[in-house]
């Protein structure tokens, strides 16, 4: 249905679909992305085992690096941009993040509260002995 794909008013790209870039530009984009991803991965491994930084800050640093890693993947490999041709992709990403936040956050909260109405375990054992 070739005529169908050309008839939209607002032209909108699917993830992975490229605009009219030359091959060289596209390869450059992927190489930069790969370089950044490797750099972030290497930094994570380095930080985890080093004494150079204050120890309690290591988990925070790892989380920051992980989020940066996700960003690199989204921008260079999945081609999520802020351009007007990308509205659907950005909205899909936002919806996905919202649902993951609700389900994971909700689950952690619920599971942490499950035993709230139970007496502490030692008290429980004393009661029944």
């Amino acid at each position, binding site marked *: 249905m070739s005529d*169908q794909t050309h*008839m939209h008013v607002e032209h909108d790209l699917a993830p992975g679909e490229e605009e009219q870039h030359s091959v060289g530009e596209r390869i450059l984009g992927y190489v930069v992305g790969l370089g950044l991803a490797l750099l972030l991965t290497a930094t994570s491994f380095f930080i985890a085992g080093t004494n150079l930084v204050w120890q309690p800050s290591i988990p925070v640093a790892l989380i920051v690096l992980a989020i940066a890693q996700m960003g690199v993947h989204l921008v260079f490999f999945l081609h999520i941009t802020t351009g007007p041709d990308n509205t*659907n992709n950005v909205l899909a990403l936002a919806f*996905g993040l919202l*649902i993951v936040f609700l*389900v994971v956050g909700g*689950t952690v909260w619920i599971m942490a509260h*499950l035993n709230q*109405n139970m007496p502490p375990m030692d008290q429980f054992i004393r009661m029944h002995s």
Partner: protein
Amino acid sequence: MLGKLDWSAIPFDQPIPLIAGGVVLAGILAVLIWVVVKGHLPYLWHEWITSVDHKRIGAMYILLASVMLLRGGSDAIMMRIQQAIAYQSQGYLPPEHYNQIFSAHGTIMIFFVAMPFVIGLMNLVVPLQLGVRDVAFPTLNSVGFWLTATGALLVNLSLVIGEFARTGWLAFPPLSELSYSPGVGVDYYAWSLQISGVGTLVAGINLVTTVLKLRTKGMNYLRMPMFCWTTLASNLLIVAAFPILTATLAMLLLDRYLGFHFFTNEAGGNVMMFMNLIWAWGHPEVYILVLPAFGIYSEVVSTFSSKPLFGYRSMVLATMAICIISFMVWLHHFFTMGAGPDVNAIFGIASMIIAVPTGVKIYNWLFTMYGGRIRFATPMLWSVGFMVTFIIGGLTGVLVAVPPADFMLHNSMFLVAHFHNVIIGGVLFAAFAGFEYWFPKAFGFRLDERWGKVGFWFTFVGFWVTFMPLYIVGMLGMTRRMQHYDVAEWRPWMLVAAFGMLLLTIGVLAQITQVVVSVRNRDALRDRTGDPWDGRSLEWATSSPPPVFNFAFYPDVRGEDAYWALKQHAKEQQLGDHPGPEYQDIEMPRNSPTGFVCAFFATVMGFALIWHIWWMVILGGVGAFATFVVFAWRDHDEYVIPAAEVERIDRINIEERRSLVSMAGAV
């Protein structure tokens, strides 16, 4: 060689499933022999089984749902009879059989009746309403349908080979774990849902893409018919929620097959995590079903009131609000699990809030009817019946959203009455309304109104007589899933409910009669114009049944209620001489057996997994994978309908319409 499978899997000592299975098998064989002898097999293969036409696939979804409705309904009849006679006695169903029946009833009604019915209607109607020629991924669509059928087949296979789960429709652990359910019942349950779940996810992705990416000229978001909006919301929920179900069941299967401890009592497993995860899918699932239902009512109420939908934008807003909030309420299914007041209060309040957009919708339908010229055809009867019924179900829902009240009513018959109230009164009534409403579009002739009304009234009254007593016995302390009981106060209500079930059965029989009678009188009931109800959206702008390409030209949409505007325009112009449009070649996707073959191998694989026949698992897996590799390497995936053929088909439709408009002009 055959894993756990041997002759003991056939329940020779239990006459009920054996006879039922035998009758069904004989029926299937008879149909198959008839098809082969009459020479319909090539037609069936080329026109239906391998079809990638969204209208055909939609019709097959609805057929599957209707057949499974009979199966799930039979389970319901058996349960009502059992509870009517099992007062101070064992009734006629032994406990292990009764437990399988209520588990199968719930599983079938949700996954293989409500889901395929709703998805079938969306498939059939949404591309037509959007004014396009097909869905985004036609072959994937066919794969989705056939995988759903695989799931249904496996569930029914459990009737005669082995057993079904005895755990309730969500298979809560630890009961569903290997130590308490060592048989194949839970495996039948889990694998059929895993396979049909893939089908549902695929359908969801397909429909989301269709609504977002394929719309005709001028059909921007705020001109889409309401049903397209609810389809979008519902399928967004499918895409977001079904992976949770798949992951949860996968963990349960890992527990059962490979000795993991996700949900076991011992070795650090956490049973509560299963409840949490399954309801994180389960509550959105409720809205996956009911949102398209709301869309159907919107279309029907607006058409039969001859008015645009009241508050269209507030309806869109309410739909999308429900879409998001439905992911914030799942804990209300397990208030009693032990969470503290903070958690219970927040989720209780969220559950009450979600009733607000639903209420907005009810008012919108009422105001749509207000001042309209209402025609009480059968689809409209179902819609008005829904409004009356659903309000009661919604109010009892708000009641059990209050945690202290829920502590009293949890797991009681009150709850059973509540969710049947919303699922039958909401989803099933909508399925029937949509069936009556769009049947002429799909098959080219209307359904018999008289039998339709008989069916409606018996179902409507039958529903009330069956389920209001269940509210009452719930208040009297009866818990759900009881195989027998000794409390005298419950007995009369159980008898009333059984009588209601009789009325419901008559309702179903009346609807079957309706279809048979209508097929016989199809010439008298023929819909020649493509617009039998004086419709407002684009599906009525093409002939009934629509040609395979739906529209010879993409309609140009200038506002809401696209087709209504076109008709007004045509009348004002005293029907125009079409300025002889240039017909063009149309490319359509080729039919493909991919879906059917994939599902065949998926069935083999599912069956083998259930019975631990490992060589067959590999065979099925490799076969399914090979099928899609073959499909991916195809050379020709489209064929061309020449312009002359398009013109010939379209001229017939134009002539019919011309006579309609000139007649209307004369009046």
